[in-house]
């Protein structure tokens, strides 16, 4: 019979102590030697797991959780993370309190990567009561967006360096562009695919022992009966959402373009040991499966010199195998026989990333209004802006073709990217410096971009000149924060600043016929949102 708490079994004491908050642990540790030894390190690991969801990839936190408890100093990790959260809180508050110097503070946060994500999410969900709720939510979301874009660009930059990047990460990067505080990031995508494979293994026990051909068909058939059967009925084929692997995996309708179906198929098939890849068949991406040298698709051995066989699948349309002759026939029907078999081989992630970028850009341009625009759903138009901008980054990081054509692509996209960074995504300046500038060295763009970067940095570092309302100034009637309706264009807006007279350049003044206004150019002008 237990007389004191210390007589209880260790497991029970652990369970009781899990209710103790981390900050009271030092006090509890002093209770007795036994308490002191029990608390390390299982409890500290528990707190790491429970309190913090997102960790930087460099920490390999998943591996640590699975490994023996004593291999990691969990207390030190918890304390380090706790301090990091406090630092990020301080930096966010500092960003909110002043307009200048924000760039450096934001970069300090985004440099921490996913270690800072939990803190940003906390501020993003600031309660309605907070005195600066709108500012807190807005800026946290903007910083988070920049951090997510960094993750995306990093995947594509890795591809540029010819580092191996799994298909689902190369394409999942696009989902990072509009993630905000939702699920469906690169890790979630990988876990979802693992989950699907587990389900497949349950449905088809012994699948590992099947021949490559039968395994491939099993995956295609599994995909189709699990709802991955093409574009959903409610969606237009060209809907932007069909290009996102994460959205396809997590949405109920699993709607996809053929390209994404092929990527999902390949990601699943590879998890079953198949040599499966998307292949760039014209107008409709398929998946190609190779048996591997020295073996047939039905699993029969051949001499090592035997190159292996190819088969094709189109999970977007059916679960059936398509043979190489059938594919050649399809090419003939399209009158593209001069392509030989070059479109019947495995594609590379960089190609599919570029295709997806172009699909997204086309999808957005097909809408009646090009960006920027306002739709009824402001968050959706914001997401389209972000997706469009992010897709351009992909094309910029992975230009294709020879040197001349790459230079031409850079020349086409760089001005648009820089304009967007300057006006809408200032926190991406770090991305420009790290991922764009190096690839521009030796071109005439390099100097211009570097100059713009320097101007933006200088502008950000400079404290704002206070504009005081003095009695002698020509009366500025309205103030910052007031909401109004434009008398001529009827839109609603809010005032964010003013000038005592019109300070736009002459071209704008003449274009807008400012001088023909009844009070002309010497009345107060307001900056509005």
């Amino acid at each position: 019979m237990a007389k004191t708490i210390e007589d209880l079994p260790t497991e029970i004491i652990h369970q009781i102590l899990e209710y103790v908050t981390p900050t009271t642990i030092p006090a509890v540790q002093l209770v007795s030697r036994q308490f002191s030894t029990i608390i390390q390190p299982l409890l500290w690991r528990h707190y790491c797991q429970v309190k913090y969801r997102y960790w930087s990839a460099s920490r390999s936190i998943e591996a640590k959780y699975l490994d023996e408890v004593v291999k990691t100093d969990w207390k030190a990790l918890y304390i380090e993370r706790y301090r990091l959260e406090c630092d990020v809180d301080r930096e966010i508050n500092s960003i909110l309190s002043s307009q200048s110097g924000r760039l450096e503070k934001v970069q300090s946060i985004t440099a921490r990567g996913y270690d800072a994500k939990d803190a940003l999410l906390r501020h993003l969900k600031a309660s309605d009561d907070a005195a600066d709720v709108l500012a807190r939510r807005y800026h946290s979301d903007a910083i988070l967006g920049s951090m997510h874009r960094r993750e995306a660009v990093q995947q594509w930059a890795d591809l540029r360096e010819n580092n191996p990047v799994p298909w689902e990460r190369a394409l999942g990067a696009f989902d990072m562009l509009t993630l905000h505080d939702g699920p469906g990031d690169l890790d979630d995508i990988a876990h979802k695919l693992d989950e699907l494979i587990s389900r497949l293994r349950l449905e088809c026990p012994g699948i590992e022992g099947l021949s490559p051909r039968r395994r491939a068909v099993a995956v295609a058939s599994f995909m189709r009966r699990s709802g991955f059967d093409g574009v959903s009925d409610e969606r237009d084929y060209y809907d932007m959402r069909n290009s996102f692997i994460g959205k396809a995996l997590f949405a109920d309708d699993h709607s996809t373009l053929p390209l994404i179906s092929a990527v999902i198929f390949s990601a699943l098939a590879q998890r079953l040991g198949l040599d499966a890849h998307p292949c760039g068949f014209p107008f409709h991406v398929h998946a190609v499966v190779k048996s591997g040298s020295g073996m047939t698709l039905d699993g029969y051995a051949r001499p090592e010199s035997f190159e292996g066989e190819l088969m094709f699948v189109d999970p977007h349309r059916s679960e059936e195998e398509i043979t190489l002759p059938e594919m050649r026939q399809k090419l003939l029907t399209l009158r593209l026989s001069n392509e030989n078999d070059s479109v019947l081989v495995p594609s590379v992630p960089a190609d599919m990333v570029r295709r997806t970028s172009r699909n997204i850009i086309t999808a957005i341009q097909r809408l009646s209004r090009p960006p920027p625009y306002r739709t009824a759903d402001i968050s959706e138009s914001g997401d389209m802006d972000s997706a469009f901008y992010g897709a351009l980054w992909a094309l910029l990081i992975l230009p294709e073709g020879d040197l001349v054509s790459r230079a031409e692509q850079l020349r086409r996209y760089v001005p648009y990217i820089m304009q967007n960074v300057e006006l809408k995504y200032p926190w991406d300046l770090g991305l420009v410096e790290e991922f764009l500038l190096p690839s521009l060295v030796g071109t005439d763009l390099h100097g211009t971009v570097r100059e713009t970067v320097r101007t933006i940095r200088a502008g950000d570092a400079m404290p704002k000149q206070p504009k005081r309302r003095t009695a002698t100034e020509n009366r500025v009637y309205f103030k910052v924060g007031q909401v109004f309706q434009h008398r001529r264009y009827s839109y609603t807006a809010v005032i964010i600043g003013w000038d005592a007279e019109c300070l736009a350049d002459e071209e704008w003044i003449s274009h807008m016929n400012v001088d023909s206004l009844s009070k002309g150019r010497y009345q107060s002008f307001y900056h509005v949102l």
Partner: protein
Amino acid sequence: MYCKCALSPYYVKNTDRCTRVEDSSTRYVAEENIQLTRPDYPGHALLTLAGKYFKRWDSTSHSFISNVKDEYPDD
């Protein structure tokens, strides 16, 4: 090298052309064109974008509370 759009915030890229800002997110308005409203609710669109310059919406004064006091200390 840069098109007009990259140089001036009053121009926007419209596929291949630089067009006048008629529908961009920040504009410049003459005082005589302003008609104050004092809405009970500023609308979802404004609330989403307002955080860039404002702390919160104040329903008593029917206006946003400034977060750009360093630039406009008297507002």
